[in-house]
């Protein structure tokens, strides 16, 4: 059973005071997230990532469609006990200390009274906040608030976690810690669904990703599958000071550095370029396949939709 099932989930806002114009925040989205995987939800700012998360959390109500988490409808109150949510740039009751906040949340999540204190200190330690446990949240830096956010999300040991931009506001050390945490969660058999616009994080962590732009899903799948769908390239380096004329049409990018030339050619043209170079009698230094990055796949998908949008509008 998939951990998260989203079926034709849609959200349209009516904007404007007198004549309500519809603003489409999310076009019908259908998506499944399997149990125990780390799923990345990627997209530029304003793509609809936060909207989707809020719909799943029941903070806003869909215009159409439905979703299930762990097989239960999202509005079923039993679902909430099994999930943890970290909103984007979280903000908490700043008159409480970290410990008080987490204890309050533990109460609300139904953690039995006997275990509350233990779980709270555990989670504080896990998030690196032991020293700030008794400090009022109003004094916390952005990074520390992010840690509190993660702490409250994992506090009650939920099965599915939803993180909205979990790395935002963190320094490289913090990001590393969060990445480690997410991997640990996966090892514990939990499902992690997180949104981000930082592709390198997704690349290193995710089993599968989805790309969303302007409220519409652009692509879903495992990273290797996605990137391999894009045509491969190869980088060829040879001794020389210029590009032979015969290669002009075949080599896409050429850089001359000192007495070497580096060119990136399409995989299809790879053999033709090598032959041409040998005909010219140039010495080939290296031929390296270039792995298409997720970024490139991403950009391509976005550009396509932008052009399409341009045509449409």
């Amino acid at each position, binding site marked *: 059973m998939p951990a998260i099932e989203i079926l034709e989930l849609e959200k349209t806002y009516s904007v404007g005071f007198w004549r309500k114009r519809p603003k489409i925040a999310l076009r019908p989205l259908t998506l499944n997230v399997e149990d125990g995987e780390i799923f990345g939800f990627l997209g530029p700012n304003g793509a609809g990532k936060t909207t989707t998360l809020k719909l799943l959390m*029941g903070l806003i109500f869909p215009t159409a469609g439905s979703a299930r988490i762990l097989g239960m409808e999202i509005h079923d109150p039993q679902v*909430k006990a099994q999930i943890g949510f970290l909103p984007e740039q979280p903000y908490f009751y700043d008159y409480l200390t970290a410990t008080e906040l987490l204890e309050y949340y533990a109460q609300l*999540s139904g953690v039995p009274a006997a275990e509350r204190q233990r779980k709270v200190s555990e989670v504080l330690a896990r998030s690196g906040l032991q020293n700030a446990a008794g400090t009022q949240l109003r004094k916390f830096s952005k990074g520390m608030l992010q840690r509190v956010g993660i702490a409250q999300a994992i506090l009650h040991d939920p099965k599915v976690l939803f993180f909205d931009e979990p790395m935002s506001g963190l320094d490289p050390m913090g990001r590393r810690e969060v990445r480690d945490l997410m991997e640990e969660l996966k090892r514990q058999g939990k499902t992690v669904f997180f949104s981000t616009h930082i592709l390198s994080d997704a690349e290193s962590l995710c089993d599968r990703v989805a790309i969303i732009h302007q409220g519409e899903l652009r692509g879903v799948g495992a990273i290797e599958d996605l990137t391999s769908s894009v045509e491969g390239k190869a980088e060829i380096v040879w001794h020389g000071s210029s590009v032979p004329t015969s290669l002009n049409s075949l080599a896409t990018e050429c850089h001359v550095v000192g007495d070497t030339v580096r060119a990136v050619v399409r995989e299809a043209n790879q053999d033709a370029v090598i032959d041409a170079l040998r005909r010219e009698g140039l010495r080939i230094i290296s031929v390296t396949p270039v792995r298409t990055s997720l970024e490139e796949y991403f950009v391509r998908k976005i550009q396509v939709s932008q052009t399409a949008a341009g045509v449409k509008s």
Partner: protein
Amino acid sequence: MSLRVAYIAANTFREAVRDRVLYNLIAFALLMSAAAILVGQISIGIERLVVVNLGLTAISLFGIVIAIFIGISLVSKEIEKRTLYTVLSRPVQRWEFIVGKFLGLAGTLVVNTFFMAIGVFGALLYVAHGLNPQDGWIAVALYFIILQFLMITAIALLFSSFSTPLLSAVFAFSLFIIGSFAGDLRSFAGMAQGVTRWLAIGAAYLLPNLSSLNVISSVAHQQPISIQLILSNTIYALVYTGMAICGSVLIFERRNLK
């Protein structure tokens, strides 16, 4: 389920206290002390009257201000600051949140009133050199004032669930002032004709009737309050409060938290 309401209420109380709302007690204490001493010195023969009138009126006004100022931001602040997101992603139902918030503020006001009552009785003891049984009716007046607080808090909460703090404050204060003259307004409505009459009467019945909850001057003159009035006022205040809270719940259940 019901425990969550209690947790939310307790947290709301804690929030109010840490927001230094109880400092108003200092201002109140100063006021009562100054009045008691002044009145004791002048000895114009109505010391008791002044202390009771002033004390109860001050309790009422201080409390209304607190009820409105905290009440209007009970929900709107949480939405604006987005502290609500991590609360509602837990197994907390939206109606539990509303009721918990209400009880928290109501509890704060009761505690506040309790301390103020001590102050009033203290001042009364000072100027009258002793209490007599009729002063027990002051407790009834205090009870009615608390009923007023419940109604106003519920109204402020209602506005908070859909409106901005500024507008909520304006509406809530207006309703408080209009509600104090609700009796007159019902008479005006009764004097109208035709369709206007029914609309006006309907509107007049929707207003919070605070005038019958104000027995300050009667109690100051040591007049007893009938059991009937106590019962009727209790029922009215509770039902009215319930109405406003139901309204808040209905609005909040459907609200998209952007």
